[in-house]
């Protein structure tokens, strides 16, 4: 009942909460002194609170980058944990300024929900996890399986499509919260746990015996995950978009949180533009000119946020793969700052 109530409140907030969308989000954010950022309810590597309530993760770092750009202070973020189901309503009704919660960029979301995707901070795809003891090696052997997953996600749609197109029977068991999905899978309710591959690696850590489970080789969908804002506020959209691009460009230019101060001496014009030493790029966004310097200094470049949160030295042990820079054969590519 509480969920219904929240949704009703959100709905009526949307109905009555007048022209919130057209108001400048940047002004609101400055007035509040913090970016209100919608994140997950706990997905290691992406957005996860520790026992003191400090949030970390690659999605959280996008929030922090925006705060660093606007305030020169990466800590000026307030987090709103959201289930997959709640996230878009929360953004539409202006409860949050920015949604950075492993959210897949799809056409419906981009067009009919009144939202804009500001880029991709992690290229993902949907995968399957099963018990090793089943002896299964391919997703095509899953005919008749029970599959546990989250409601309100692209996941449930992809898996239905996949089973249908391969003429396989499917029992889909859908929970609202990820923790229940993990528990139900762990207690044997389902043969298969499906979600974004990154999510599988993260959630596997929560199982009783992570080693007894394998992720199958098939990736059945494209899941470009990125930050989302409301339509109708181009300035705020630009700020979020370029905060992400700044981190990717910084990696490409070899600028990291460790060397950003030395790099101020660099003669490379691209580096000088990035760090706000030439041109007035911040001004054009309505924020200080050292915006990108603050991002790299306080949060890091893209390689750093990847390695710190999901990389090979973290429990998730994910390699760069398609998330490498375009110059290294991956998909990460940011338009130039000029």
């Amino acid at each position: 009942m509480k969920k219904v109530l929240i949704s009703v409140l959100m709905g009526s907030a949307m109905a009555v909460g007048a022209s919130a969308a057209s108001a400048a989000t940047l002004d609101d954010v400055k007035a509040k002194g913090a970016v209100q950022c919608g994140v997950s309810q706990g997905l290691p590597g992406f957005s996860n609170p520790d026992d003191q309530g400090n949030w970390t993760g690659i999605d959280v770092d996008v929030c922090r980058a925006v705060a660093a750009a606007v305030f020169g202070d990466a800590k000026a973020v307030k987090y709103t944990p959201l289930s997959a189901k709640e996230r878009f309503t929360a953004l539409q009704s202006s409860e949050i300024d920015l949604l950075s919660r492993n959210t897949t960029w799809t056409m419906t979301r981009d067009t009919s929900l009144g939202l804009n995707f500001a880029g991709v901070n992690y290229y993902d795809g949907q995968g399957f996890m099963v018990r090793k003891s089943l002896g299964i090696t391919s997703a095509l052997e899953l005919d008749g399986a029970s599959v546990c997953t989250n409601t309100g996600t692209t996941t449930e749609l992809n898996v239905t499509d996949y089973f249908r197109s391969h003429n396989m029977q499917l029992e889909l068991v859908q929970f609202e919260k990820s923790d229940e999905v993990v528990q139900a899978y762990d207690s044997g309710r389902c043969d298969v746990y499906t979600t974004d591959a990154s999510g599988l690696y993260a959630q596997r850590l929560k199982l009783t015996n992570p080693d007894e489970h394998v992720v199958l080789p098939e990736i059945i969908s494209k899941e470009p995950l990125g930050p989302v804002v409301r339509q109708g506020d181009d300035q705020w959209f630009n700020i979020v978009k370029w905060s992400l691009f700044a981190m990717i460009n910084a990696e490409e230019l070899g600028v990291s949180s460790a060397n950003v101060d030395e790099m101020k001496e660099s003669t490379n014009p691209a580096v000088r533009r990035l760090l706000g030493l030439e041109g007035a790029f911040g001004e054009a966004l309505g924020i200080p000119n050292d915006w990108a310097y603050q991002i790299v200094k306080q949060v890091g470049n893209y390689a750093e946020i990847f390695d710190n949160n999901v990389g090979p030295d973290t429990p998730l042990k994910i390699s760069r793969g398609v998330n490498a820079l375009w110059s290294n054969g991956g998909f990460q590519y940011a338009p130039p700052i000029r």
Partner: protein
Amino acid sequence: MAAKPHHSTGQTSTKGSIFNDPKVRGIIYQLVLVAGLVYFFWSIVQNAAHNLEKQNIASGFGFIENTAGFLPNQTLISLSATSTYGQALLAGLLNTLLVAVIGIILATIVGFVMGVARLSNNWVVSKLATMYIEIVRNIPLLLQLFFWYFAVLRNLPNPKDSSNLFGVFHLNNRGLFMPRPIFEAGSEAMLVALAVGIVGAIGVSIWARKRQVKTGQRFPAFWTGLGLIILLPVLAYFLSGRPISYDYAELKGFNYKGGMKVIPEFVGLTLALTIYTGAFIAEIVRAGILAVNHGQTEAAHALGLRNGPTLRLVIIPQAMRVIIPPLTSQYLNLTKNSSLAVAIAYPDIVSVGGTVLNQTGQAIEVIAVWMIVYLSISLLTSILMNWYNRSIALVER
């Protein structure tokens, strides 16, 4: 509406302006209030439509016809992967009704048994009932829901090690699998026989009551009726050449296929709702029984009635008048509480609606559907219970 003034109306209306007539004034005030409310809601709708459009959010009910692309794990109507959002919502609604109806029946039984048990003279029985009531009423329903769901799940075996009964019932952590009857040509006879049986049973009970009033002789109407309802269709079954065959569930691959199945989510939800609401009903029943003067019991005993019949024939019928109104609100609570289903993957209207909301982004429309569904179910329940309440109310002669 204002009461009629004492002095004659003809006199007052000639005296002052009609605004001094309390009746006219009352009507005007009400009209103004209604107009204000209409304007208020109209402007909310307008404002919402305007803002949705400005935010580029789709609106309207057109999405009902679009392909849903997901399948709830329990559907009472047959759905396919290409079914529409409308059909998915209907399936969700039926699932809500199913769990509400079964929950209400079971909770009523548990509640009456426990309410009477708490008043029992047997110390152990009454203390056990008290413990049940006090524990269950004081733990949030959501926790109980998780408890029962995962308690049920964790104690059930994998499909490969299912517990089997007679080789045709199979129980495992995917559900309870049963043979599904297939009605072939000729089975209409059984339906007719069933109808005849029911009519016969009603007839017998009316006749038996009349006879008892007239002659004082008792007749086992209940058992006769039950016999008619069961025996006639069975007879028809054999006479029409056994027109029912069964589709048995069989272990294939991951799980049992075919047959009928009851999913653990349904069991968990029904169990939690029954046990939770049953505790509240037990208290209502106890209060109702205590409200009947003790003299009634003594009088019944004095007439030679034993404890059972006293309770059944004297106390409960009178207690019902006190019990029904609060019982109605428990039924409404149970129905509304069933919306917690989404927590344990039971596909009720809120769960399915939530998925639809998320896939289409049409929050206002889906919330409107939820509100209409719960409002209709609640009003319907109230109407039925009020009707029942009137039919048993004291008739003063």
